[in-house]
């Protein structure tokens, strides 16, 4: 077994017993990045020097008996997390040279848990995209087949876990941006409940939807990372002050007697037959483990994409007003005054998809259109949220596909933004409802591409998601397959 094949849980033991040092582990990952990331393009910045220093410090901690949950564990971050002294681009030209003066809370918590930061990961610019083709620094390629997309927007975060160029990563999920790339790359991805993880120091896209979560090789590692980052933070006013349960304590409790709902609307026309059959297989496995299945209905599902693309773009148009070429980021000044400086800096710095969303959001919020678009979408959001909350009153969890198809080819959907948006149909409702969901592998297509499924849980019921996912994972072997690189 090579050093890069161990999970976090296994390494906790190996590092503590001194069988593996944090320094050799870090070097093994840096070597892996150097040898295979050229094919994948998951990394935007490799922080080799600071990673080596952190690994040496971790070894001193281990020798001194000062052991924390992630001591010496090499992780990587979507480039949406601001990191003190380490370039943070959000995969945009407008932030190409931005070096933040502080660390966000989730990052600080990883450091406080002893983690070693390997680097910053590629993504769709400002987290706007479903294929990771909207990065100003080139698309990420799927480790299972380099002609296919990774999904997005946390494409680098999913690809580095699948390619074993990091042990695990953090991403963000606004409309599916953790779960969909996790599904396309065959890894585990958790989108926690809105308010569960602090967004302080996370570059904002759509603030009523954005949430931070882990991407890992298996469910136990997901529980370990979720534990490290969850919890109240006074620096994020939307963070919820509620106790965080011990996710590992309930992990092995099984699914016997668990009631799982199958949303009828998610299994209709438009669902790829291979994805459908993988989900049916998963249902049989879970039923064999003692779970009960109930068909339920989420009648407003068909409105979710329209609702999302009004709310998310409206919020984005406001959040992205801060990129004005004054305090940080790109400035284009041709001596025509302040207003021209704003307009030219933004035009030169933002990519096509970001501009499209800013324009749509600005339009939806502008005088005369607010009621018809933004307010209408907020009302639709209430109905979509009520659907999910009502369904979860009847059952413990929902089981659903993550994406309608396995990963698609690079370039296949770039010409038609609307087609790209529709690939988020099964992930968006969870963000609109503000609840939690976990994506995990449940099969492969005939072409060898991973297929994912998601459990959707009640608000703050991350422990139930992890418990069900762990039971399924133990009964199957999808998570043991490796992409060949």
């Amino acid at each position, binding site marked *: 077994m090579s050093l890069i094949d161990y999970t976090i849980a296994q390494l906790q033991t190996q590092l503590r017993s001194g069988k593996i040092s944090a320094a050799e582990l870090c070097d093994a990952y840096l070597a892996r990045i150097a040898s295979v990331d050229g094919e994948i393009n998951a990394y935007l910045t490799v922080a080799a020097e600071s990673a080596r220093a952190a690994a040496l410090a971790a070894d001193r901690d281990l020798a001194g008996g000062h052991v924390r949950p992630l001591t010496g564990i090499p992780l990587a971050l979507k480039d949406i997390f601001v990191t003190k002294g380490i370039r943070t681009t959000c995969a945009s030209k407008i932030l190409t040279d931005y070096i933040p003066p502080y660390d966000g809370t989730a990052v600080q918590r990883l450091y406080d848990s002893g983690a070693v930061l390997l680097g910053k990961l590629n993504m769709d610019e400002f987290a706007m995209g479903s294929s990771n083709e909207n990065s100003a620094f080139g698309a990420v390629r799927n480790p299972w087949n380099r002609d296919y997309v990774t999904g997005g927007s946390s494409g680098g975060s999913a690809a580095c876990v699948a390619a074993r160029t990091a042990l695990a990563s953090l991403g963000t999920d606004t409309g599916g941006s953790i779960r969909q790339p996790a599904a396309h790359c065959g890894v585990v991805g958790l989108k926690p409940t809105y308010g569960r993880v602090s967004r302080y120091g996370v570059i904002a896209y759509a603030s009523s939807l954005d949430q931070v979560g882990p991407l890992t090789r298996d469910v136990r590692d997901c529980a370990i990372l979720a534990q490290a980052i969850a919890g109240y933070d006074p620096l994020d006013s*939307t963070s919820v002050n509620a106790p965080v349960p011990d996710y590992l304590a309930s992990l092995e409790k099984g699914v016997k007697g668990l009631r799982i709902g199958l949303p009828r609307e998610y299994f209709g026309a438009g669902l790829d037959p291979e994805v459908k059959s993988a989900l049916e297989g998963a249902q049989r496995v879970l039923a064999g483990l003692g779970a009960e299945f109930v068909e339920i209905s989420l009648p*407003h599902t068909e409105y979710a994409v329209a609702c999302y693309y009004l709310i998310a773009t409206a919020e984005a148009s406001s959040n992205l007003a801060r990129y004005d070429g004054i305090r940080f980021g790109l400035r284009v000044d041709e001596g025509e005054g302040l207003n021209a400086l704003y307009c030219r800096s933004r035009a030169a710095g933002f990519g096509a998809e970001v501009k499209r969303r800013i324009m749509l959001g600005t339009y939806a919020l502008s005088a005369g259109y607010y009621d018809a678009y933004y307010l209408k979408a907020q009302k639709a959001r209430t109905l979509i949220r009520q659907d999910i909350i009502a369904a979860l009153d009847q059952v413990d969890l929902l089981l659903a596909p993550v994406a309608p198809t396995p990963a698609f080819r690079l370039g296949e959907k770039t010409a038609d933004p609307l087609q790209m948006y529709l690939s988020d149909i099964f992930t968006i409702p969870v963000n609109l409802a503000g609840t939690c969901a976990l994506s995990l592998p449940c099969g492969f297509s005939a072409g060898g591409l991973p297929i994912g499924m998601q459990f959707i849980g009640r608000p703050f019921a991350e422990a139930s998601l992890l418990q069900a996912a762990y039971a399924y994972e133990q009964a199957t072997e999808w998570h043991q397959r490796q992409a060949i690189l």
Partner: protein
Amino acid sequence: MKITENEVKKVAKLAKLTLSDPDIERMATDMDAMLAYVATLASLDTDGIVPTAHAVPMANAFRTDQLRPSLERDAVMAAAPKSAGGTFRVPKVIE
């Protein structure tokens, strides 16, 4: 509904984006497609439905009004495209 190039120009002005003529044309096409798609919401009966701005029910979050250190000025100014004497430099605004 068809969005005109003049409307695109007006929105671009509000959004502070300089768009070239081909950009404007492409943007009109894309916005048209999106607006036609989101128009499906019009068929949804939302009479008497309270809008959701935020999924988790919570009131305002307050903190005590207390002095505390902010970010280091030098570290903040280091990220500015142009600065002088610990301040951001901008083109002249008032003649």
